[in-house]
């Protein structure tokens, strides 16, 4: 495996606060993400992890603080602008386009790169057709990569949950992002499928050098594949550092990993099983 080429800070989140009416989803959160790294965000339910992602890609506008992405600082940018800067994401509660096929879902990820106007499209000749074919080739590469060839033409609504998650990832990858935000990509999967998913994430990270921000509740996964971890709790940051540091932090254990459980998850998993 190639050694990681972790580089400069690409995303810098500074003093973000976000509240909905009385609910403080995020309070004064700061952290950064470096080029090529896999950055995990963990925390108990309702800690504000998803809200954090929503702030980064412009779905929510934080009341305070600023986000700097590749040198550009913003307070309120539209999701489209963020997307144009190469940020893609997946969603916790599957936000796929249910009525469309797998292929079409992934093709929508290429939308930013498709420029031919209405008339060309309506005629479907020459440039429009060529463009469609080019982008289709890219989409097909992603389909191959995610091993979902067999379901290419199936409406995503009919797919089992795990595959839908994979399509969601595919759609994000189709944007060829430089920064990929993943919101619980492995929820509801069994070990085998999680392994597959990890493989995809690691491949993307390695081969395309994509920077990844990952929210995940499976500590095994987080500890194994992430480079640095942020821990949120009730909208506040309670930890930030390498997986091992975080795992042993008192705060994190109390707030998140579970009271009596002081041992790292990976060991527990094996030890729990009678030999």
């Amino acid at each position, binding site marked *: 495996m190639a050694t990681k080429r972790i580089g400069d800070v690409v995303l810098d989140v500074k003093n973000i606060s976000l509240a909905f009416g009385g609910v403080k989803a995020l309070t004064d959160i700061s952290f950064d993400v470096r080029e090529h790294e896999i950055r995990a965000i963990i925390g108990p339910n309702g800690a504000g992890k998803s809200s954090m992602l929503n702030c980064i890609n412009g779905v929510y506008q934080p009341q305070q603080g600023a986000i700097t992405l590749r040198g550009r600082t913003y307070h309120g940018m539209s999701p489209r602008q963020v997307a144009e800067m190469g940020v893609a994401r997946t969603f916790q509660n599957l936000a796929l386009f249910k009525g469309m096929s797998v292929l079409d879902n992934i093709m929508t990820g290429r939308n930013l790169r498709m420029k031919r106007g209405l008339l060309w*499209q309506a005629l479907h000749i020459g440039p429009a057709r060529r463009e469609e074919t080019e982008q289709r080739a890219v989409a097909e590469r992603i389909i191959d990569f995610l091993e979902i060839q067999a379901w290419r033409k199936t409406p995503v609504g009919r797919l089992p949950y795990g595959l839908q998650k994979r399509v969601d990832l595919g759609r994000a990858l189709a944007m060829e992002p430089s920064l990929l935000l993943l919101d619980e990509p492995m929820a509801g999967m069994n070990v085998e499928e999680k392994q597959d998913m990890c493989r995809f994430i690691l491949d993307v990270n390695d081969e395309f050098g994509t920077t990844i921000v990952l929210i995940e509740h499976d500590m095994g996964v987080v500890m194994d594949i992430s480079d640095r971890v942020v821990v949120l709790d009730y909208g506040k940051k309670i930890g930030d550092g390498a997986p091992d540091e975080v795992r042993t932090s008192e705060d994190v254990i109390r707030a998140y990993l579970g009271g009596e459980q002081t041992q790292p998850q990976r060991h527990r998993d094996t030890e729990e099983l009678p030999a």
Partner: protein
Amino acid sequence: MLYRENGQFKTSYPADSQILPIRQDRIAMGLLLAAAFILVPMASSEYLLRAVFVPFLILSLAALGLNVLVGYCGQISLGSGAFMAVGAYVAYNCQARFEGMPLIVALLAGGLGATVLGVAFGLPSLRIKGLYLAVATLAAQFFVDWACLRLKWVTNDSTSGSVSVADLHIGSLSLESPQARYLLCLAFVVVFALATKNLVRGHIGRSWMAMRDMDVAASVIGIRPMQAKLSAFAVSSFIIGVAGALWGFVHLGSWEPAAFGINRSFDLLFMVIIGGLGSISGAFFGAAFIVVLPLVLDKLPYWTGMPMDTATASHLALMIFGALIVFFLIKEPHGLARLWATAKEKLRLWPFPH
């Protein structure tokens, strides 16, 4: 065993993304088109052409347009009657005011007029959704109804507010015969159906569907909600506008605003839902259901041999019509087009059940 795609492999992406990937379907479509262009005008009575096929085609076209908006982009509209009206009146004004304007140009101008209105009334869709939007679009319906009655220049100062068009012709070709009118409508329908199909399988169509299915996710992917929705409104109202112009020019010949009243809007919405949201063929199924079924039901007393007075017969027809709507929705909530697709799927597996 006839209906199988075995052995038909696609070797290129364009081949794979053809409109009809299965050879049998292509043959069937070819036959259908040939029949529509050659057989029907030759073999049909004037009644069939004028009173069944022409309205069927025009309403299919309108339903096609509405389907772009409702079926593909997920914006429910109850204002299609208004867009048809605008199409008809703009086309009328073009012909009445500009001496010698070719018919086709006038019809397309009608479409453009409707587009302008469509975009204007599409703007609220950026904030208003679902049923709320549906009722809000009624504002267009009622406003246009009113304007067509009230604004004198809309009807070119006709005293009664009704307008009529002079003899239709394209170049030196007269469009008086039912065959000519039928073919004109058919040509429009075929061209627009093809263009719409092309749009919905391209990136613009995908951006519509994305807005429909999950708008937040769509915007995160980089789809501009405004652009996607307004383009859907524009395309949809253009097609509906052209259909309206055809309805006025080719079908009615002379009309008052009531010809494009709210019932028309409901009928069109009906067609796209009964026919199948988000499917091109759905528009045709739906239009057939709405246009042809009542005619068939009218004949009911004759078939049953029961003498029945007109009122009872039409009440009964109304009831059966309503019941059939409910029945089909229960049978297949996704419309007749889906029912057809399921039937085909079964045929593909035949003789195995699964």
